[in-house]
């Protein structure tokens, strides 16, 4: 199989789209109310050590992805077991994003269209993207990332006349507890979800750039998230913003510049679609690679269709309604994600460091 190579810039664009993909539309830090901005900053700071761990893994074993590293460190049998566990996370995450997507499109623009049609169209597009390879996805992300970022910032600038700074006051009225719990939620969704990038980071042209890629993406993605979340609070107010499923969409829909420029919420929908496709594709990449590595198959691309279709099917049966989706995302998902986002990478890094000291030639 031909080795796929992605430049640092392309990887940063891909990761930025991945980080603020669904979070920018679903809204982040609503639980912290007027202190959402503080929760996002704390979450970004909390993400620094864990991003360092992800990057360190890719730097210690530059030619290997997380599946190879786990097998190198823990051996064949335990390694494959951990890999199966890890790929299940990428699979479920992909299904969750497809579901977010189909709920969003159905609620805001196509209420009569069945969910499976929307899921199928998005899913087939992502399957085709994975079949084309990581290079194509990275180039796609490099083209669309600036467009998505400019549109997000444009909506924010156009919202300035209808912003009310009093919506962010008083600071820390409810104490630090809701801020900390909200930053924990933001840490697990979307920042630490970047753990799936450990499966494709070996495609980076200069592997020593891994640290730079992770941190630049965190800064850019975190900044966009901070700007959009603060904008939603300033425009809609705390209570209204917290009660909405898609606050960004609603905050863009109230923009009206001299009865001339209005209905620009389509830009938010565009953001979600473009960034969401990258997020689903990366999860599908991770799941397909995991299956291929577990069963010792060189090429992961043939699995894109069956795993993609399974993802679509699972996304359709995950929840009965969007209420359950949001409830599950807040109450269950953060605890479900911790083993994959923190526990496995930390254990693998420590084991890799110990192994590389005991057996100096164990590095790939």
């Amino acid at each position: 199989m031909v080795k796929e190579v992605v430049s640092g810039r392309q990887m940063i664009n891909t990761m930025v789209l991945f980080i603020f993909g669904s979070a920018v539309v679903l809204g982040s830090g609503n639980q912290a109310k007027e202190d959402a901005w503080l929760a996002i900053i704390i979450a970004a700071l909390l993400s620094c050590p864990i991003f360092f761990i992800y990057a360190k893994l890719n730097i210690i074993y530059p030619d290997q992805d997380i599946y190879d590293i786990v097998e190198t460190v823990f051996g064949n049998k335990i390694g494959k077991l951990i890999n199966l566990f890890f790929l299940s996370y990428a699979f479920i995450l992909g299904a969750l994003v497809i579901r977010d997507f189909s709920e969003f499109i159905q609620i805001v623009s196509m209420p009569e269209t069945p969910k499976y049609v929307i899921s199928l169209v998005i899913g087939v597009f992502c399957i085709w993207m994975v079949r084309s390879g990581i290079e194509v996805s990275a180039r796609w992300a490099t083209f669309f990332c600036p467009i998505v970022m400019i549109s997000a910032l444009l909506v924010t600038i156009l919202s300035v006349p209808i912003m009310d700074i009093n919506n962010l006051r008083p600071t820390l009225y409810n104490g630090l507890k809701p801020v900390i719990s909200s930053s924990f939620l933001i840490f697990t969704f979307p920042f630490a979800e970047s753990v799936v990038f450990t499966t494709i980071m070996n495609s980076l042209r200069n592997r020593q750039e891994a640290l730079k890629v992770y941190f630049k993406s965190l800064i850019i993605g975190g900044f966009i998230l901070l700007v959009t979340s603060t904008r939603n609070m300033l425009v809609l107010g705390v209570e209204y913003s917290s009660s909405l499923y898609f606050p960004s969409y609603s905050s863009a829909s109230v923009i009206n510049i001299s009865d001339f420029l209005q209905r620009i919420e389509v830009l938010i929908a565009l953001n979600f679609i473009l960034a969401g496709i990258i997020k689903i594709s990366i999860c599908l990449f991770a799941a397909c690679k995991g299956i291929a590595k577990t069963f010792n198959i060189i090429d992961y691309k043939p699995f894109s269709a069956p795993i993609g279709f399974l993802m679509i099917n699972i996304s359709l049966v995950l929840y009965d309604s969007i209420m359950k989706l949001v409830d599950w995302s807040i109450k269950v998902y953060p605890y479900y994600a911790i083993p994959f986002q923190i526990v496995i990478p930390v254990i693998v890094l420590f084991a890799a460091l110990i192994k590389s000291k005991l057996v100096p030639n164990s590095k790939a």
Partner: protein
Amino acid sequence: MLILFLASYIIFIFADFIPIKNKRQPTLLWLYSITMSIAFLMSIAISLGVNIPSPALFIERIVRVFVD
């Protein structure tokens, strides 16, 4: 719904199956066939309205054991 799913499965099976067969990797062929069959059967079940248990509920039960 069933027709839409059938059409997409047929397109991908036609596009994938012959290249996979030509690769002469029995594990790949078997694994592809099994995963595709599971996905296909699941799609049929969903389109016929069969109630498939959600993995979200299963995950929730496991999480509740540790969190509550």
